[in-house]
């Protein structure tokens, strides 16, 4: 049996098999140790050039990718939309083709439109890694959540994971759903009916309307960020109301009286979807998630770099 490999790009967890997801998680393990060394750097990607193309604000993901790239000795360039030709109206594909003409090996892209990463990957020979595209997927976030759950429980199969909050706008939710289902976990969604797309039930997830019921059911809770910038559509009455009905609070956590693991992809709205007591408490794995993010991204970069880009092969 040949071991699984990844294709040219990482667009989403929907397109990966369970074996490919496990390959990335297993590869991430030794990379955790690299970040604990005094010299946090290995030469695996020496001479590779990576462009971080961010069309949307990001702190955590961009820095995490940049650390992962630097710890693998790649050369990196950051392109943000402001101050670049993008603000002069250059199309996505023109920007990427120009970068490719400078002989880059990989592009990490964050874009507000769903499908942007796939669009780019289909048109350039360099490896493309999706760092979040619209409401579609954020595969490395999904992978780091899986790794954090596996660290904590020793397995994914059979776990009950509730994804809570603004599922409608969340690419993190979609990547989590695909990854968790493929690895054999049970998934429930919990949140205001206006923010839970019913059609997701077709993927094999259940909907638990009340947060207390979701917490009683789940082994782990992935609390999504309420995307305040997208709340003009009247999805929720008010932030206070949201916190009262759906907030993950210490009182609720004490009421379920079990060792519920709490994840949050960040950035947190403290006092809205999650209370500070919970975010900073013993049930929270929010900071281990961030640590694992670097290891998972190193694993993805390393695995994709194994295949030479088309312009090198030709």
């Amino acid at each position, binding site marked *: 049996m040949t*071991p*699984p490999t990844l294709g040219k790009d990482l667009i989403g967890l929907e397109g990966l098999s369970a074996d490919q997801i496990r390959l990335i998680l297993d590869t991430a393990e030794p990379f955790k140790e690299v970040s604990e060394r005094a010299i946090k750097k290995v030469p695996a990607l020496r001479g590779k050039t990576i462009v971080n193309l961010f069309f949307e604000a990001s702190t955590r993901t961009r820095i995490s990718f940049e650390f992962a790239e630097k710890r*693998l000795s790649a050369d990196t360039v950051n392109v943000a939309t402001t101050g670049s030709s993008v603000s002069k109206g250059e199309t996505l594909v023109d920007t990427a083709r120009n970068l490719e003409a400078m002989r880059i090996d990989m592009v990490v892209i964050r874009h507000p439109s769903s499908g942007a990463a796939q669009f780019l990957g289909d048109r350039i020979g360099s490896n493309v890694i999706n760092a979040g595209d619209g409401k579609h997927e954020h595969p490395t976030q999904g992978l780091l959540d899986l790794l954090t759950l596996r660290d904590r429980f020793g397995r994914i199969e059979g776990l009950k994971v509730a994804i809570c909050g603004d599922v409608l706008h969340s690419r993190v939710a979609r990547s989590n759903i695909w990854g968790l289902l493929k690895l054999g976990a049970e998934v429930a969604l919990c949140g205001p009916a206006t923010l839970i797309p019913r059609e997701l039930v077709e993927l094999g997830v259940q909907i638990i309307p009340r947060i207390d019921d979701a917490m009683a059911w789940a082994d782990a809770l992935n609390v999504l960020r309420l995307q305040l910038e997208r709340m003009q559509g009247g999805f929720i009455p008010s932030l206070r109301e949201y916190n009262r009905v759906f907030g993950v609070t210490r009182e609720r956590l004490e009421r379920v009286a079990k060792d519920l693991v709490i994840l949050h992809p960040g950035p947190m709205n403290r006092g809205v979807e999650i209370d500070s007591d919970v975010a900073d408490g013993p049930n929270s794995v929010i900071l281990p998630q961030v640590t694992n993010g670097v290891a998972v991204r190193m694993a993805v970069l390393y695995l994709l770099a*194994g295949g030479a880009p088309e312009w090198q092969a030709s």
Partner: protein
Amino acid sequence: MPSVTRLLDDSAMASVLERMAGEVVEKSGKIGGVVLVGIQRRGVELAGRLAGLIGKATGATIPLGKLDITLYRDDLSTIGQRPRVGETSLPDSIEGKTVVVVDDVLYTGRTIRAALDELADFGRPRRILLCVLVDRGGRELPIQADITGLSVETTGDDRVDVGVWELDGRDGVDLVRGAPL
């Protein structure tokens, strides 16, 4: 058809390892400052064996480390996607120590080149010695072993298989002619 020649059976391998352990003690001077570092995978088991033998002979406990050189290879983009990266774990400090690098087979020398680069990222040992069970010739870099269990002439069409009971269920070294990796 590939032909298999047994170079060492389990008892011959045991006595070769015993001799190598003696040479490690002899060549490394003060045994107190010695660290044995095995290269993944079979070097790790061999280092463990040597540490046991040295311990029995001298009463000293030898710190053990393991090194996975995958991330230091010079051929990542030509060999395609390499799934498995193993574990690297070294004793607290190799600063000022005599580090004995242990591997099963010495061939092109590229693995050892990578191992030396990786060790340098962990500190500055006083001295590094190279200890291999089988030297099969065919070097592509100016690297030689300090302690060798067995030397054998081979060509690029041959393969040297080292078995250790921890991983393979039995000890022994085979030369397989006409079946390269």
